[in-house]
Protein backbone atom coordinates (compact mmCIF):
# COMPACT_ATOMS: atom_id res chain seq x y z
CA UNK A 1 0.00 0.00 0.00
CA UNK A 2 1.42 3.33 -1.04
CA UNK A 3 1.79 5.75 1.82
CA UNK A 4 -0.35 8.38 0.20
CA UNK A 5 -3.38 6.11 -0.04
CA UNK A 6 -5.33 7.45 2.90
CA UNK A 7 -8.44 5.30 2.44
CA UNK A 8 -8.24 1.71 1.28
CA UNK A 9 -11.33 -0.47 1.07
CA UNK A 10 -10.91 -4.13 0.15
CA UNK A 11 -13.65 -6.58 -0.74
CA UNK A 12 -16.23 -4.82 1.39
CA UNK A 13 -19.53 -6.62 1.95
CA UNK A 14 -22.31 -5.31 4.17
CA UNK A 15 -25.52 -7.11 4.99
CA UNK A 16 -28.55 -5.64 6.75
CA UNK A 17 -30.32 -8.86 7.64
CA UNK A 18 -30.95 -10.46 4.27
CA UNK A 19 -30.28 -7.26 2.29
CA UNK A 20 -26.80 -7.09 0.80
CA UNK A 21 -26.15 -3.35 0.70
CA UNK A 22 -22.50 -3.70 -0.43
CA UNK A 23 -21.45 -6.64 -2.54
CA UNK A 24 -17.68 -6.45 -2.66
CA UNK A 25 -16.43 -2.89 -2.97
CA UNK A 26 -12.77 -2.06 -3.61
CA UNK A 27 -11.71 1.55 -3.39
CA UNK A 28 -8.49 3.46 -2.91
CA UNK A 29 -8.38 7.18 -2.27
CA UNK A 30 -5.09 9.07 -2.32
CA UNK A 31 -4.53 11.86 0.16
CA UNK A 32 -5.76 15.22 -1.09
CA UNK A 33 -8.09 13.80 -3.71
CA UNK A 34 -11.76 14.62 -4.12
CA UNK A 35 -13.92 11.64 -5.01
CA UNK A 36 -17.56 12.08 -5.92
CA UNK A 37 -19.90 9.09 -5.64
CA UNK A 38 -23.15 8.93 -7.57
CA UNK A 39 -25.72 6.22 -8.07
CA UNK A 40 -29.41 5.44 -7.76
CA UNK A 41 -31.22 5.31 -4.44
CA UNK A 42 -30.38 2.20 -2.47
CA UNK A 43 -27.16 1.52 -4.36
CA UNK A 44 -25.10 1.57 -1.14
CA UNK A 45 -23.49 5.01 -1.31
CA UNK A 46 -24.34 5.96 2.27
CA UNK A 47 -23.45 2.52 3.53
CA UNK A 48 -20.00 2.79 1.95
CA UNK A 49 -19.33 6.16 3.59
CA UNK A 50 -20.64 4.93 6.94
CA UNK A 51 -18.40 1.85 6.82
CA UNK A 52 -15.38 4.11 6.40
CA UNK A 53 -15.94 5.75 9.80
CA UNK A 54 -17.46 2.62 11.33
CA UNK A 55 -20.96 3.98 11.85
CA UNK A 56 -21.72 0.68 10.14
CA UNK A 57 -19.55 -2.36 10.79
CA UNK A 58 -18.58 -4.29 7.70
CA UNK A 59 -19.80 -7.86 7.39
CA UNK A 60 -16.76 -8.90 5.40
CA UNK A 61 -13.71 -7.17 3.95
CA UNK A 62 -11.28 -4.57 5.20
CA UNK A 63 -11.26 -0.82 5.69
CA UNK A 64 -7.93 0.98 6.16
CA UNK A 65 -7.77 4.61 7.14
CA UNK A 66 -4.45 6.45 7.22
CA UNK A 67 -2.52 3.20 7.44
CA UNK A 68 -4.66 1.64 10.19
CA UNK A 69 -7.05 -1.23 9.72
CA UNK A 70 -10.39 -0.63 11.43
CA UNK A 71 -10.94 -3.25 14.10
CA UNK A 72 -13.25 -3.76 17.03
CA UNK A 73 -11.40 -1.79 19.69
CA UNK A 74 -13.68 1.16 20.58
CA UNK A 75 -10.67 3.33 21.48
CA UNK A 76 -9.10 2.85 18.08
CA UNK A 77 -12.41 3.54 16.35
CA UNK A 78 -12.91 6.75 18.33
CA UNK A 79 -9.39 7.88 17.42
CA UNK A 80 -9.86 7.15 13.74
CA UNK A 81 -13.22 8.93 13.74
CA UNK A 82 -11.49 12.01 15.06
CA UNK A 83 -9.49 12.07 11.82
CA UNK A 84 -12.62 11.76 9.69
CA UNK A 85 -15.16 14.55 9.55
CA UNK A 86 -18.67 13.61 8.50
CA UNK A 87 -21.39 15.85 7.12
CA UNK A 88 -24.92 14.48 7.04
CA UNK A 89 -27.86 15.12 4.76
CA UNK A 90 -29.96 16.39 7.70
CA UNK A 91 -27.10 18.38 9.32
CA UNK A 92 -27.57 16.71 12.73
CA UNK A 93 -26.56 19.80 14.65
CA UNK A 94 -27.04 19.59 18.41
CA UNK A 95 -30.20 21.65 18.99
CA UNK A 96 -29.54 22.37 22.67
CA UNK A 97 -26.22 24.11 21.89
CA UNK A 98 -25.41 27.34 20.05
CA UNK A 99 -23.58 27.23 16.74
CA UNK A 100 -20.28 27.95 18.47
CA UNK A 101 -20.92 25.41 21.24
CA UNK A 102 -21.73 22.82 18.57
CA UNK A 103 -18.21 23.38 17.28
CA UNK A 104 -16.33 23.62 20.58
CA UNK A 105 -17.85 20.65 22.45
CA UNK A 106 -16.04 17.80 20.71
CA UNK A 107 -12.81 19.77 20.57
CA UNK A 108 -12.87 20.01 24.34
CA UNK A 109 -14.16 16.51 25.10
CA UNK A 110 -12.28 14.57 22.43
CA UNK A 111 -9.27 16.70 21.54
CA UNK A 112 -8.83 17.97 25.13
CA UNK A 113 -8.37 21.52 23.98
CA UNK A 114 -8.71 24.39 26.42
CA UNK A 115 -11.79 26.55 26.28
CA UNK A 116 -9.86 29.41 24.68
CA UNK A 117 -8.27 27.19 22.04
CA UNK A 118 -11.61 25.61 21.20
CA UNK A 119 -13.34 28.97 20.88
CA UNK A 120 -10.51 30.39 18.74
CA UNK A 121 -10.74 27.41 16.44
CA UNK A 122 -14.54 27.56 16.43
CA UNK A 123 -14.60 31.21 15.43
CA UNK A 124 -11.96 30.58 12.79
CA UNK A 125 -14.04 27.83 11.22
CA UNK A 126 -17.26 29.84 11.42
CA UNK A 127 -15.47 32.63 9.61
CA UNK A 128 -14.22 30.19 7.01
CA UNK A 129 -17.79 29.04 6.24
CA UNK A 130 -18.96 32.65 6.28
CA UNK A 131 -21.34 32.80 9.27
CA UNK A 132 -19.26 34.25 12.06
CA UNK A 133 -22.18 36.48 13.06
CA UNK A 134 -24.30 33.43 13.93
CA UNK A 135 -21.93 32.09 16.58
CA UNK A 136 -24.33 32.51 19.49
CA UNK A 137 -27.49 31.42 17.72
CA UNK A 138 -29.21 28.07 18.23
CA UNK A 139 -29.67 25.80 15.20
CA UNK A 140 -33.45 26.26 15.03
CA UNK A 141 -32.88 29.92 14.21
CA UNK A 142 -30.64 29.15 11.24
CA UNK A 143 -31.63 28.41 7.67
CA UNK A 144 -30.84 24.98 6.25
CA UNK A 145 -27.84 26.29 4.38
CA UNK A 146 -26.49 27.99 7.48
CA UNK A 147 -27.03 24.85 9.55
CA UNK A 148 -25.12 22.77 7.04
CA UNK A 149 -22.26 25.27 7.07
CA UNK A 150 -22.12 25.09 10.86
CA UNK A 151 -22.04 21.30 10.54
CA UNK A 152 -19.10 21.57 8.15
CA UNK A 153 -17.33 23.97 10.51
CA UNK A 154 -17.96 21.55 13.39
CA UNK A 155 -16.28 18.75 11.49
CA UNK A 156 -13.37 20.91 10.31
CA UNK A 157 -12.63 22.16 13.82
CA UNK A 158 -11.40 18.67 14.72
CA UNK A 159 -8.59 19.03 12.13
CA UNK A 160 -9.68 15.96 10.20
CA UNK A 161 -7.56 14.42 7.46
CA UNK A 162 -10.63 13.22 5.58
CA UNK A 163 -14.09 14.68 5.08
CA UNK A 164 -17.09 12.54 4.20
CA UNK A 165 -20.20 14.22 2.79
CA UNK A 166 -23.46 12.27 2.48
CA UNK A 167 -25.77 14.24 0.18
CA UNK A 168 -24.98 17.50 1.97
CA UNK A 169 -27.26 19.63 -0.19
CA UNK A 170 -30.20 17.36 -0.95
CA UNK A 171 -32.27 18.56 2.03
CA UNK A 172 -31.73 22.21 1.12
CA UNK A 173 -33.93 24.67 -0.72
CA UNK A 174 -32.42 25.37 -4.15
CA UNK A 175 -31.32 28.90 -3.29
CA UNK A 176 -29.17 27.60 -0.43
CA UNK A 177 -27.34 24.87 -2.31
CA UNK A 178 -24.73 27.20 -3.72
CA UNK A 179 -23.57 28.61 -0.38
CA UNK A 180 -22.81 25.07 0.83
CA UNK A 181 -21.20 23.95 -2.42
CA UNK A 182 -18.98 27.06 -2.38
CA UNK A 183 -17.67 26.07 1.04
CA UNK A 184 -16.99 22.57 -0.24
CA UNK A 185 -15.23 23.85 -3.36
CA UNK A 186 -13.06 26.02 -1.17
CA UNK A 187 -12.19 23.03 0.96
CA UNK A 188 -11.30 20.98 -2.12
CA UNK A 189 -8.99 23.72 -3.31
CA UNK A 190 -7.27 23.70 0.07
CA UNK A 191 -6.29 20.09 -0.57
CA UNK A 192 -8.68 18.28 1.78
CA UNK A 193 -9.29 14.61 1.06
CA UNK A 194 -13.00 14.42 0.33
CA UNK A 195 -15.49 11.65 -0.35
CA UNK A 196 -18.73 13.22 -1.50
CA UNK A 197 -22.03 11.54 -2.26
CA UNK A 198 -23.96 14.11 -4.28
CA UNK A 199 -26.03 14.55 -7.37
CA UNK A 200 -24.67 18.04 -7.95
CA UNK A 201 -22.84 17.36 -11.19
CA UNK A 202 -21.60 20.94 -11.33
CA UNK A 203 -19.62 20.26 -8.19
CA UNK A 204 -18.29 16.99 -9.60
CA UNK A 205 -17.16 18.73 -12.75
CA UNK A 206 -15.50 21.59 -10.87
CA UNK A 207 -13.87 19.75 -7.99
CA UNK A 208 -13.75 15.99 -8.43
CA UNK A 209 -10.54 14.20 -9.30
CA UNK A 210 -12.52 11.03 -9.65
CA UNK A 211 -16.13 10.09 -10.20
CA UNK A 212 -17.55 6.78 -9.02
CA UNK A 213 -20.81 5.33 -10.19
CA UNK A 214 -22.38 2.77 -7.86
CA UNK A 215 -25.31 0.48 -8.47
CA UNK A 216 -26.72 -2.41 -6.46
CA UNK A 217 -23.90 -2.43 -3.94
CA UNK A 218 -21.06 -2.39 -6.46
CA UNK A 219 -18.79 0.18 -8.08
CA UNK A 220 -19.84 -0.04 -11.71
CA UNK A 221 -17.63 2.60 -13.24
CA UNK A 222 -14.88 4.85 -12.04
CA UNK A 223 -12.73 7.50 -13.68
CA UNK A 224 -12.24 11.19 -14.28
CA UNK A 225 -15.52 13.12 -14.31
CA UNK A 226 -14.91 14.38 -17.83
CA UNK A 227 -14.35 10.90 -19.23
CA UNK A 228 -17.43 9.54 -17.55
CA UNK A 229 -19.66 12.43 -18.51
CA UNK A 230 -18.48 12.43 -22.11
CA UNK A 231 -18.06 8.74 -22.71
CA UNK A 232 -19.61 6.45 -20.11
CA UNK A 233 -18.63 2.85 -20.76
CA UNK A 234 -21.47 1.03 -19.00
CA UNK A 235 -25.11 1.04 -20.06
CA UNK A 236 -26.26 1.61 -16.47
CA UNK A 237 -24.01 4.65 -16.12
CA UNK A 238 -25.34 6.13 -19.36
CA UNK A 239 -28.92 5.64 -18.26
CA UNK A 240 -28.32 7.12 -14.81
CA UNK A 241 -26.41 10.14 -16.10
CA UNK A 242 -29.02 10.86 -18.74
CA UNK A 243 -31.63 10.86 -15.99
CA UNK A 244 -29.89 13.19 -13.59
CA UNK A 245 -28.42 15.51 -16.20
CA UNK A 246 -31.91 16.24 -17.51
CA UNK A 247 -32.67 18.33 -14.47
Amino acid at each position, binding site marked *: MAKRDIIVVKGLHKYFGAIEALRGVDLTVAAGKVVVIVGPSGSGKSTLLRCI*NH*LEVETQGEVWVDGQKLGHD*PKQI*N*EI*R*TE*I*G*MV*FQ*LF*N*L*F*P*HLTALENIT*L*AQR*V*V*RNRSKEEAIDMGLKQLKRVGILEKADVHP*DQLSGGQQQRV*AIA*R*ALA*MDPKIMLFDEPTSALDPEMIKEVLDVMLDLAQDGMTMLVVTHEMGFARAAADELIFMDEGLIVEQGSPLDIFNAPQEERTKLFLSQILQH
Partner: protein
Amino acid sequence: MSDRGGPLQESASFGPIVSSRRDRLSLAVAQAPLWLIAIFLLAIWAGYFILTRQNFRQAFEFILIGLSATISTTLWSYSMALILGLIAGLGRISRNVIIKNLATLYVEIIRGIPILVLIFYIALVAVPSVVDSLQALGFWLISRDISFLGEPLSLLSNQAISMNTRAVIALSVTYGAFLAEIFRAGIQSIGRGQMEAARSLGMSYGEAMRYIILPQAIRNVLPALGNDFVAMVKDSSLVSVLAVRDITQVARLYAGRTFRFREAYTTLAVLYLTMTLVLSLIVRMIERRYERNG
Protein backbone atom coordinates in the same frame (compact mmCIF):
# COMPACT_ATOMS: atom_id res chain seq x y z
CA MET B 1 -47.69 6.60 33.57
CA SER B 2 -50.68 8.81 33.10
CA ASP B 3 -52.69 7.86 36.15
CA ARG B 4 -50.17 8.68 38.84
CA GLY B 5 -49.83 12.45 38.57
CA GLY B 6 -51.70 15.19 40.36
CA PRO B 7 -55.11 16.69 39.79
CA LEU B 8 -53.99 18.92 36.92
CA GLN B 9 -52.47 16.17 34.90
CA GLU B 10 -55.30 15.74 32.42
CA SER B 11 -55.94 18.99 30.66
CA ALA B 12 -59.44 20.36 31.00
CA SER B 13 -61.23 20.70 27.70
CA PHE B 14 -64.97 20.67 27.69
CA GLY B 15 -65.21 22.06 24.16
CA PRO B 16 -67.32 19.47 22.34
CA ILE B 17 -69.98 19.40 25.07
CA VAL B 18 -71.22 22.85 24.18
CA SER B 19 -74.40 22.71 22.10
CA SER B 20 -75.01 25.13 19.27
CA ARG B 21 -77.85 26.90 21.14
CA ARG B 22 -75.55 28.33 23.75
CA ASP B 23 -74.01 31.76 23.40
CA ARG B 24 -70.41 32.79 23.82
CA LEU B 25 -70.65 33.47 27.50
CA SER B 26 -71.80 29.99 28.33
CA LEU B 27 -69.14 28.68 25.98
CA ALA B 28 -66.54 30.53 28.02
CA VAL B 29 -68.06 29.15 31.19
CA ALA B 30 -68.15 25.66 29.74
CA GLN B 31 -64.51 25.84 28.72
CA ALA B 32 -63.24 27.24 32.01
CA PRO B 33 -61.80 24.59 34.32
CA LEU B 34 -64.78 24.67 36.65
CA TRP B 35 -63.52 21.68 38.57
CA LEU B 36 -60.28 23.51 39.28
CA ILE B 37 -62.15 26.53 40.61
CA ALA B 38 -64.25 24.16 42.71
CA ILE B 39 -61.13 22.58 44.17
CA PHE B 40 -59.73 25.98 45.06
CA LEU B 41 -63.01 27.03 46.70
CA LEU B 42 -63.04 23.75 48.59
CA ALA B 43 -59.50 24.33 49.79
CA ILE B 44 -60.27 27.88 50.86
CA TRP B 45 -63.44 26.75 52.65
CA ALA B 46 -61.52 23.98 54.40
CA GLY B 47 -58.73 26.37 55.27
CA TYR B 48 -61.27 28.73 56.80
CA PHE B 49 -62.74 25.87 58.78
CA ILE B 50 -59.37 24.75 60.00
CA LEU B 51 -58.39 28.21 61.13
CA THR B 52 -61.66 29.18 62.80
CA ARG B 53 -62.94 25.97 64.37
CA GLN B 54 -61.12 24.99 67.50
CA ASN B 55 -61.38 21.22 66.80
CA PHE B 56 -60.08 21.52 63.27
CA ARG B 57 -57.26 23.76 64.31
CA GLN B 58 -56.15 21.30 66.94
CA ALA B 59 -56.18 18.48 64.40
CA PHE B 60 -54.29 20.63 61.92
CA GLU B 61 -51.59 21.57 64.39
CA PHE B 62 -51.18 17.93 65.44
CA ILE B 63 -50.96 16.68 61.87
CA LEU B 64 -48.33 19.30 60.99
CA ILE B 65 -45.95 17.31 63.21
CA GLY B 66 -45.81 14.75 60.41
CA LEU B 67 -45.11 17.23 57.64
CA SER B 68 -41.34 17.08 57.92
CA ALA B 69 -41.41 13.27 57.66
CA THR B 70 -43.63 13.44 54.58
CA ILE B 71 -41.40 16.03 52.93
CA SER B 72 -38.09 14.38 53.78
CA THR B 73 -39.34 10.92 52.78
CA THR B 74 -40.53 12.29 49.45
CA LEU B 75 -37.40 14.30 48.72
CA TRP B 76 -34.96 11.55 49.67
CA SER B 77 -36.91 8.87 47.85
CA TYR B 78 -37.34 10.94 44.73
CA SER B 79 -33.65 11.89 44.57
CA MET B 80 -32.57 8.29 44.92
CA ALA B 81 -35.24 7.16 42.47
CA LEU B 82 -33.83 9.65 39.93
CA ILE B 83 -30.40 8.03 40.19
CA LEU B 84 -31.76 4.48 40.12
CA GLY B 85 -34.12 5.37 37.29
CA LEU B 86 -31.37 6.90 35.19
CA ILE B 87 -29.15 3.85 35.65
CA ALA B 88 -31.97 1.40 34.93
CA GLY B 89 -33.22 3.51 32.00
CA LEU B 90 -29.75 3.48 30.43
CA GLY B 91 -29.60 -0.25 31.16
CA ARG B 92 -32.86 -0.82 29.29
CA ILE B 93 -31.33 0.51 26.07
CA SER B 94 -27.89 -1.02 26.58
CA ARG B 95 -26.52 -3.19 23.81
CA ASN B 96 -25.12 -5.48 26.49
CA VAL B 97 -27.63 -8.34 26.69
CA ILE B 98 -27.05 -9.06 30.38
CA ILE B 99 -27.38 -5.43 31.50
CA LYS B 100 -30.43 -4.97 29.32
CA ASN B 101 -32.17 -8.03 30.73
CA LEU B 102 -31.32 -7.19 34.32
CA ALA B 103 -32.74 -3.69 33.89
CA THR B 104 -35.87 -5.03 32.22
CA LEU B 105 -36.31 -7.65 34.94
CA TYR B 106 -36.15 -4.95 37.61
CA VAL B 107 -38.66 -2.70 35.86
CA GLU B 108 -41.12 -5.48 35.09
CA ILE B 109 -41.03 -6.99 38.58
CA ILE B 110 -41.71 -3.64 40.21
CA ARG B 111 -44.45 -2.72 37.78
CA GLY B 112 -46.23 -5.99 38.41
CA ILE B 113 -46.62 -5.59 42.18
CA PRO B 114 -48.83 -3.10 44.05
CA ILE B 115 -46.85 -0.33 45.72
CA LEU B 116 -48.26 -1.18 49.14
CA VAL B 117 -47.06 -4.77 48.83
CA LEU B 118 -43.66 -3.58 47.59
CA ILE B 119 -43.29 -1.34 50.62
CA PHE B 120 -44.03 -4.21 53.02
CA TYR B 121 -41.78 -6.56 51.08
CA ILE B 122 -38.79 -4.29 50.62
CA ALA B 123 -38.85 -2.84 54.13
CA LEU B 124 -39.59 -6.04 56.03
CA VAL B 125 -38.13 -8.80 53.84
CA ALA B 126 -35.63 -7.51 51.30
CA VAL B 127 -33.77 -5.01 53.49
CA PRO B 128 -33.34 -7.44 56.43
CA SER B 129 -32.12 -10.20 54.09
CA VAL B 130 -29.58 -7.92 52.47
CA VAL B 131 -28.42 -6.66 55.85
CA ASP B 132 -28.05 -10.22 57.18
CA SER B 133 -26.07 -11.25 54.12
CA LEU B 134 -23.78 -8.23 54.38
CA GLN B 135 -23.23 -8.96 58.06
CA ALA B 136 -22.38 -12.58 57.30
CA LEU B 137 -20.01 -11.37 54.58
CA GLY B 138 -18.41 -9.08 57.16
CA PHE B 139 -17.71 -11.95 59.56
CA TRP B 140 -16.38 -14.05 56.72
CA LEU B 141 -14.03 -11.24 55.67
CA ILE B 142 -12.81 -10.90 59.27
CA SER B 143 -12.11 -14.62 59.36
CA ARG B 144 -10.04 -14.11 56.22
CA ASP B 145 -8.14 -11.24 57.88
CA ILE B 146 -9.67 -8.59 55.66
CA SER B 147 -11.02 -6.72 58.67
CA PHE B 148 -10.86 -3.17 57.28
CA LEU B 149 -13.79 -4.23 55.07
CA GLY B 150 -15.17 -6.85 57.40
CA GLU B 151 -15.45 -4.75 60.57
CA PRO B 152 -17.89 -2.13 59.30
CA LEU B 153 -20.01 -4.79 57.58
CA SER B 154 -20.14 -7.01 60.67
CA LEU B 155 -21.47 -4.09 62.69
CA LEU B 156 -24.53 -3.76 60.48
CA SER B 157 -27.72 -4.86 62.12
CA ASN B 158 -31.38 -4.61 61.32
CA GLN B 159 -32.19 -2.66 64.44
CA ALA B 160 -29.82 0.04 63.27
CA ILE B 161 -31.83 0.62 60.11
CA SER B 162 -34.84 2.73 61.03
CA MET B 163 -38.24 2.35 59.47
CA ASN B 164 -37.81 5.82 57.97
CA THR B 165 -34.72 4.63 56.12
CA ARG B 166 -36.46 1.43 55.01
CA ALA B 167 -39.40 3.46 53.79
CA VAL B 168 -37.08 5.62 51.72
CA ILE B 169 -35.37 2.53 50.28
CA ALA B 170 -38.73 0.96 49.42
CA LEU B 171 -40.10 4.07 47.71
CA SER B 172 -36.81 4.68 45.87
CA VAL B 173 -36.66 1.16 44.48
CA THR B 174 -40.31 1.34 43.47
CA TYR B 175 -40.14 4.73 41.80
CA GLY B 176 -36.75 3.97 40.27
CA ALA B 177 -38.55 1.52 38.01
CA PHE B 178 -41.20 4.09 37.03
CA LEU B 179 -38.60 6.76 36.32
CA ALA B 180 -36.48 4.27 34.35
CA GLU B 181 -39.30 3.99 31.84
CA ILE B 182 -39.54 7.77 31.59
CA PHE B 183 -35.80 8.12 30.99
CA ARG B 184 -35.83 5.30 28.45
CA ALA B 185 -38.68 6.90 26.51
CA GLY B 186 -36.90 10.26 26.66
CA ILE B 187 -33.64 8.88 25.32
CA GLN B 188 -35.42 6.97 22.57
CA SER B 189 -37.25 10.13 21.53
CA ILE B 190 -33.94 11.67 20.42
CA GLY B 191 -33.23 10.96 16.76
CA ARG B 192 -30.51 8.51 15.79
CA GLY B 193 -28.68 11.26 13.90
CA GLN B 194 -27.69 12.95 17.17
CA MET B 195 -25.80 9.91 18.41
CA GLU B 196 -24.23 9.40 14.98
CA ALA B 197 -23.08 13.00 14.73
CA ALA B 198 -21.54 12.81 18.20
CA ARG B 199 -19.84 9.49 17.50
CA SER B 200 -18.52 10.69 14.14
CA LEU B 201 -16.77 13.52 16.01
CA GLY B 202 -14.91 10.87 18.00
CA MET B 203 -16.97 10.93 21.19
CA SER B 204 -17.42 7.67 23.06
CA TYR B 205 -20.89 6.28 23.71
CA GLY B 206 -20.77 7.60 27.27
CA GLU B 207 -19.62 11.06 26.20
CA ALA B 208 -22.31 11.24 23.55
CA MET B 209 -24.93 10.23 26.13
CA ARG B 210 -23.72 12.74 28.66
CA TYR B 211 -23.23 15.78 26.47
CA ILE B 212 -25.67 15.26 23.61
CA ILE B 213 -28.45 12.75 24.29
CA LEU B 214 -29.27 13.14 28.00
CA PRO B 215 -29.49 16.96 28.07
CA GLN B 216 -32.10 16.81 25.32
CA ALA B 217 -33.86 13.72 26.66
CA ILE B 218 -34.19 15.05 30.20
CA ARG B 219 -35.56 18.31 28.93
CA ASN B 220 -38.20 16.39 26.99
CA VAL B 221 -39.28 14.34 29.99
CA LEU B 222 -39.29 17.10 32.61
CA PRO B 223 -43.12 17.22 32.68
CA ALA B 224 -43.32 13.45 33.14
CA LEU B 225 -40.70 13.58 35.90
CA GLY B 226 -42.71 16.36 37.53
CA ASN B 227 -45.91 14.34 37.39
CA ASP B 228 -44.19 11.44 39.08
CA PHE B 229 -42.88 13.75 41.77
CA VAL B 230 -46.46 14.79 42.50
CA ALA B 231 -47.46 11.14 42.50
CA MET B 232 -44.67 10.37 44.95
CA VAL B 233 -45.98 13.01 47.36
CA LYS B 234 -49.26 11.10 47.44
CA ASP B 235 -47.69 7.65 47.56
CA SER B 236 -45.47 8.69 50.44
CA SER B 237 -48.65 8.28 52.56
CA LEU B 238 -48.21 4.53 52.13
CA VAL B 239 -45.14 4.53 54.37
CA SER B 240 -47.51 5.11 57.29
CA VAL B 241 -48.00 1.32 57.24
CA LEU B 242 -44.40 1.10 58.46
CA ALA B 243 -45.31 3.41 61.35
CA VAL B 244 -43.25 6.23 59.84
CA ARG B 245 -44.75 9.33 61.43
CA ASP B 246 -45.69 11.16 58.25
CA ILE B 247 -48.87 13.25 58.09
CA THR B 248 -51.02 10.21 57.32
CA GLN B 249 -49.72 8.25 60.29
CA VAL B 250 -50.01 11.23 62.59
CA ALA B 251 -53.58 11.85 61.43
CA ARG B 252 -54.41 8.23 62.15
CA LEU B 253 -52.93 8.57 65.62
CA TYR B 254 -54.88 11.72 66.25
CA ALA B 255 -58.13 10.21 65.03
CA GLY B 256 -57.61 7.08 67.08
CA ARG B 257 -56.90 9.05 70.21
CA THR B 258 -59.67 11.68 69.96
CA PHE B 259 -62.26 9.91 67.78
CA ARG B 260 -62.44 13.13 65.75
CA PHE B 261 -62.30 11.31 62.42
CA ARG B 262 -63.93 14.07 60.43
CA GLU B 263 -61.46 16.70 61.61
CA ALA B 264 -58.41 14.47 61.25
CA TYR B 265 -59.09 13.09 57.77
CA THR B 266 -60.55 16.26 56.28
CA THR B 267 -57.48 18.16 57.35
CA LEU B 268 -55.24 15.40 56.00
CA ALA B 269 -57.00 15.30 52.64
CA VAL B 270 -56.89 19.08 52.27
CA LEU B 271 -53.22 19.09 53.12
CA TYR B 272 -52.41 16.57 50.36
CA LEU B 273 -54.66 18.36 47.91
CA THR B 274 -52.94 21.67 48.59
CA MET B 275 -49.49 20.19 48.13
CA THR B 276 -50.35 18.36 44.90
CA LEU B 277 -52.19 21.37 43.48
CA VAL B 278 -49.31 23.72 44.08
CA LEU B 279 -46.78 21.23 42.72
CA SER B 280 -48.92 20.47 39.68
CA LEU B 281 -49.16 24.17 38.91
CA ILE B 282 -45.38 24.42 39.09
CA VAL B 283 -45.02 21.43 36.77
CA ARG B 284 -47.47 23.07 34.38
CA MET B 285 -45.47 26.28 34.38
CA ILE B 286 -42.23 24.48 33.63
CA GLU B 287 -43.97 22.57 30.86
CA ARG B 288 -45.31 25.78 29.33
CA ARG B 289 -41.94 27.43 29.45
CA TYR B 290 -40.32 24.58 27.58
CA GLU B 291 -43.11 24.43 25.04
CA ARG B 292 -42.63 28.09 24.32
CA ASN B 293 -38.87 27.82 24.04
CA GLY B 294 -39.23 24.81 21.73
